[in-house]
């Protein structure tokens, strides 16, 4: 287990290093001068030069890259050009929105998809199953931002039950903040649930055809014990795999959803930072997101081990 962890850790660092080089290179070749964006169109060349110097943009790119990387290794994150704050502080602030949003979305997705998937599998080819299949087909086809706008139009603008967007802040209004995340999380979660329901259903169907399920039934176990004791656990492995992949997509989806509901999350931060050429923010947020995806995949591996003893201990 120790060697396994070490291997993964080295792999993780290598991937982060590659990600850092890639994001630096992309930002470097991308046209756009941060000083010009900051100062606007009528700035004099003199002021532009002063600001470039202050931001360290007048140095050769490899020096900038080395400086950045060494700084990171020593624990110094960059400073946002736009906000004039340490990027780490910004990430922490924004994760307080994006983190709960993603967790809520996953929660909604799992809560919807697993029971519905099991239900569909148990009613295979009967009307209930067909209805589920139809609805999930729709869910796969609908873009999440569109569902978000629909929810906003209905529940916020028409009925006035929710705010149309924005985020009061956890310390200001806890329940209000939770409520502010509910609509976007629902939009993200429902769309995720569509694919997860289908995976749960087909995986469950496969499992229910297995010999051990027949054995369980033959030894007289009740339907509940068969489904939840023997079936579900085995059926969940592909679901967990897809769920892990969804986390990466969820971060991407959050960028769009945060723009629809103008939430001050990580996605909007990076979206805005790209437009403003706030290079330190883009670099470090992208790196942070890469680290998150890698970390979630690591968690997924751990979850496999938990679900399947054969992965945990090959001798068993």
């Amino acid at each position, binding site marked *: 287990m120790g060697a396994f962890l070490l291997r993964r850790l080295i792999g993780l660092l290598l991937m982060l290093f590659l990600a850092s080089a890639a994001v630096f290179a992309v930002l470097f070749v*991308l*046209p*756009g*001068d941060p000083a*010009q*964006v*900051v*100062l*606007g*169109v*009528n*700035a*004099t060349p*003199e*002021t532009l030069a*002063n*600001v470039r110097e*202050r931001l360290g943009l007048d140095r050769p790119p490899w020096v900038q890259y080395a400086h950045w990387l060494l700084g990171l290794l020593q624990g110094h994150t960059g400073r946002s*050009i*736009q*906000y*004039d*704050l340490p990027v780490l502080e*910004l990430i922490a*602030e*924004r994760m307080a929105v994006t983190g709960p949003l993603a967790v809520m979305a996953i929660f909604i997705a799992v809560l919807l998809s697993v029971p519905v998937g099991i239900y569909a599998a148990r009613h295979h080819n009967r009307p209930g199953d067909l209805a589920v299949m139809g609805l999930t087909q729709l869910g796969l086809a609908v873009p999440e931002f569109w569902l978000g*706008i629909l929810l*906003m*139009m209905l529940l*916020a*603008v028409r009925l*006035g039950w929710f*705010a*149309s*967007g*924005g*985020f009061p*802040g956890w310390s200001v209004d806890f329940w209000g903040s939770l409520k502010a995340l509910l609509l976007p999380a629902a939009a993200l979660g429902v769309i995720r649930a569509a694919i997860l329901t289908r995976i749960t259903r087909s995986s469950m169907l496969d499992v229910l055809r297995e010999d051990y399920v027949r054995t369980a039934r033959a030894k007289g176990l009740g339907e509940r014990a068969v489904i939840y004791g023997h079936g579900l656990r085995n059926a969940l492995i592909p679901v967990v795999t897809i769920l892990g992949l969804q986390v990466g997509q969820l971060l991407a989806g959050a960028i769009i959803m945060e*723009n*629809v*509901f*103008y*939430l*001050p*999350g990580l996605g*909007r*931060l990076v979206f*805005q930072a*790209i*437009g*403003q*050429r706030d290079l330190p923010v883009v670099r470090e947020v992208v790196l942070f997101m890469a680290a998150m995806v890698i970390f979630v995949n690591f968690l997924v591996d751990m979850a496999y081990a938990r679900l399947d003893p054969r992965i945990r201990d090959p001798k068993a």
Partner: protein
Amino acid sequence: MKKVALFVMIAALICQVATASAQEPVKGGHLVVCSQAEPPGLDPTANTAAAIDRVVYSNIFEGLIKLDGQGRFVPALAERWEVSGDGLTYTFHLRKGVRFHNGEAFDAKVARWNLERAMGEKTQNPHPEYFRGIARIETPDDHTLVLTLKEPDGLFLVHMAEGDAVMLPVGAAEEAKSRPIGTGPFKFVQWVRGDRVEVERFDGYWNPRLPYLERVTFKFIPDSSAQAAALKAGDIHVIGYQANPETALELSKDKRYKVYNGTTTTEVILSTNNKAKPFDDIRVRQAMAYAIDRKRLVDLAVQGFGTPIGSHWCPSAPYYVDLTGLYPYNPDKALQLLKEAGYPNGFDAVIKLPVTYEYARRSGEVIADMLSKVGIRLRIEVIEWAQWLDRVFKNKDYQLTVIGHAEPWDINIYAKPDYYFQYDSPRFREAYARALKASTEEDKARYFGTCQRIIAEDAVNGFLFSLSSLPIMKAEVMGWWENYPTIALDCSEVWLKR
């Protein structure tokens, strides 16, 4: 009959009294304003971004003088000022008893520090040239500031009323970006990055009558449909400026909202690279001017919320000359000019449109269609803003683009041959220099008029229209600016009707 007349008179009188009492400003209340873009910092002396002035100008920060909603220069930190007959000496009489939000006093020495900082070598001010014409700063007493210029500058007062010239407390420049301290009617409370800036009433404001509002929140919602949803859902009171024209059209019919179709200082132009073929030929540029039906363009691109222009000058600004008749819509004339220029079958060109600005994108699409009627086939390339700045603005790697120039009094850009239009005209530069040195109003009108005429005749760019201010607000919002003579969302005299 007499009775009826009397009744009508009394009724009219009652109505008048009723409206007068209804117009009496009420104190208190929390106004939520939607400003589209989040500002890159909050210090207007370090950055020209319009988004900064929209939050801080006349709200948090003030200069010696300010512009009001009618475009008049009104006293701010200077109670009054005098200009000497030769246009060289400006004497500002500073208001007494003015304090910054941190309690420090504002006086002539503070003003001097601010001006010197803007002029200095290490300046971060985007417009040091506004201040570098100052030869001498004198402070005969704490409340008198005498500035002597090297030579007359017709726009000196204009610049002193801009965000670049607001007054900061001594030594607070570094902080101003994130924790601004000014002398304005509102003091900074907090900036929740990515979401909002909150300000609240400053009790020590030099004008005890103002502000009316207790609190103002500037919320940053870039997406126009999200803005409309927020207004309808009651999350915001005002969409601050240039709301989506379709939303404006829809809500102008709804009694619960007010839509102002006022003026701005933004000229939307078809910027043309005057050094790129075939646009280096004046006949080609004139042909384009004839081929664009501006009235129709305004209808199609911004639902009629705009005013056609004929030069780089806003109809609402002083010294405006109406040159829209110089190149009236005339496709036949355009075809003839193209033929003379050697393009009987037209030509292909690329137009680069910034994705950030909806009006620019739509105008570009309409223009592409209009120009295709005379054989000019445009390929549309939509690019993001930072790329526009880099490729079009800085490297002049473009043929045509559409953009709004928001800065007031910015005709000076035609006097810079290396500006992205690459327009090089000694005649214009001379006229502009004269306009700046003019000391009488008649001379200013004459020379600024000449400036407008020269660039219109040269058809430097396609002069399209001036944007409407287009704020949308709930009916209870009172005192909001209708016209935007400068870039600001001044809340000092705004109040909420109950």
